[in-house]
């Protein structure tokens, strides 16, 4: 029972990071109908930026803030520089371009920092919390991770719901042509979407790196699981992204905990199993609406 609680709590903590990546993918998907394969690579790079800032200033929070700002800039620049020119061309071209962007960013990080694993500081203590004498399996930092992502998701949700900028974004995601006809600058809305996605990715990178270490490929597996979470939830649904992330995080935590010595090697396979089962019954994810196919 104690074990179960521990696995659940640590699963939620990791699941929130998957949720952050998933949410960033959903933001871009809703705006451009495009899956950004470079999301993990961009998050890795902004974490290196944070690493540099922390090394020079000695302040964790300065690095944290600069990383988020770098994420915003990187997201917007990526959209303007390489995605904008592909609008109106086959989607496939843009997908390949994001893969190219991923390879480029990882190569660049390799050139600048080499392949070695670097440790990245955590904001709070990583020593496990206890309730009385029972260890809970999570630390103060894990709680911070969950709270930070949840806060970001809620802020986004409120922004979408109650601000005019959010309304414009929802309109652009709903129907590009109608949005444009009503005077919304869809191109600008898309850039903002990419910038916000960059911010969420940067947040995920800073939050996960204390437990994964930092190296050019460090975000690859996090991206893959974040992506799986987004697909499970349905790429159109921000709520689905968070739920998908939590489901996946908890499921993988149980797999790693209960499957014995092989468990940690099989996490990817368990994720694949979950993905296949979900997609078998709902090919567009759990939170998808009715299926519409354009003819």
């Amino acid at each position: 029972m104690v074990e179960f609680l521990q696995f659940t709590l640590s699963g939620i903590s990791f699941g929130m990071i998957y949720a952050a990546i998933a949410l960033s993918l959903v933001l871009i998907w809703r705006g451009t109908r495009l899956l950004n394969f470079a999301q993990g690579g961009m998050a890795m790079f902004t974490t290196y930026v944070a690493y540099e800032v922390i090394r020079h200033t000695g302040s964790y929070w300065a690095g944290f803030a600069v990383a988020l700002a770098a994420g915003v800039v990187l997201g917007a620049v990526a959209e303007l520089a390489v995605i904008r020119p592909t609008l109106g061309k086959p989607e496939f071209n843009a997908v390949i371009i994001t893969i190219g962007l991923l390879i480029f960013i990882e190569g660049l990080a390799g050139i600048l920092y080499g392949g070695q694993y670097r440790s990245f500081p955590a904001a709070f203590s990583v020593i496990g919390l206890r309730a009385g004498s029972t260890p809970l399996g999570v630390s103060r930092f894990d709680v911070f991770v969950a709270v930070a992502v949840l806060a970001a998701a809620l802020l986004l949700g409120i922004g979408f719901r109650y601000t005019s900028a959010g309304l414009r974004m929802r309109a652009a995601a709903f129907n590009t042509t109608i949005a444009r006809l009503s005077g919304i600058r869809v191109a600008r809305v898309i850039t903002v979407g990419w910038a916000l996605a960059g911010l969420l990715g940067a947040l995920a990178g800073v939050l996960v790196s204390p437990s994964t270490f930092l190296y050019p490929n460090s975000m690859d597996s996090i991206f893959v699981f974040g992506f799986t979470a987004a697909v499970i939830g349905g790429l159109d649904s921000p709520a689905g992204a968070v739920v998908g992330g939590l489901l996946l995080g908890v499921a993988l935590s149980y797999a790693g905990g209960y499957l014995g010595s092989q468990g940690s090697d099989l996490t990817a396979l368990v994720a694949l199993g979950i993905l296949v089962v979900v997609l078998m019954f709902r090919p567009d994810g759990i939170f998808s609406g009715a299926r519409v196919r354009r003819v």
Partner: protein
Amino acid sequence: MTVQSTPRILGAALATAVLVVIASIKLNAFRDYQIAEIAIEVTAVAGLTVLTGLSGQISLGNGAFMAIGGYTTALLMLHLGWPFVAVLVIAAAVTAVAGAVVGVAAARLHGPYLAGATLLLGVALPSLADAYPGTFGGDQGLNVVFTAPGFLGVNFPLTRWQAWVSSAVALVTLVLLANLARSRIGRNWRAVRDDEVAAALAGVNVARSRILAFVVSATCAGMAGALLAIVTGLVAPGAFTITLSIALLTAAVIGGLGTLPGAVWGSLVIVLVPTYATDVATSHGLSTAVASNIPLAAYGVVLILVMLLFPQGVQGGVRWLLGLFLISAVPNRRTADAPDVPDARPPAGETPAPLAPPHEKEGTQ
């Protein structure tokens, strides 16, 4: 046209075979190894370019099929000691079955959902080797012993024999795929790619067509994995990472998606450029970390530029150059006689293509 071009394809394949044999005898052992590497890459990329370029399905997990082929080969050679030809057939059959299983799941999925499922497959499958080290040798992998046959003499270099075997498999694969692409099956793939609904209305079994594309693609990848096992003498999870799957896609795109000559161009680029770039970088006194990452960064840039500027890849450029000469020589005839696929435009994905008739369009330019 079909009657004419089959000898043409065979001629091109034979000419390439002769070239490979001459080159492998003239060049040193390291170049022979590279020839083998290129042939392996061609085998896998050709399968992927058919899947993505012709049937319009993306796969980010073909490295997993290579792993299946490689491990099947290693296990059969290790435990049963079968000759390579028999092992290759079994490896191809096993990956074909795996491809069918994935294809059945994939036939229901579209665009990003398919990319996600195949990406996860590429990540998940090699981790089985770590989970069951007793069977698959864990991180160390399994060693494969492969020798040149006795009748070639004791002094015959193994690398040359490996280059020959790999090139033979690659060429046979290319010839078969070229024929398949021009057959009814290939036309169905293109019809499904361009407009699923129109294809279904025209009587094409969409699901079966898409699954078959996956089977063909997986079989090619499986044979490439088998070749990789005998050429490197080792199958280990580190050889089948997601980087491999992405490299395959990169090669297919740079060469020109959906074209078999493009698979050859792309493979040449992806095998030769890193070695060359690393050589140049180290000779200029750069550290190994920098030298080994320069090709990676360069690929990224090339991939982006190709997609922005030349979406038809190298083969598109080659065809354009040929066109400059051929158009004046043979007026008003289409270029469909070329031993590749006439319609080289990148797949439209789910974008609604204009309701074109689901057969080959003539004179698309």
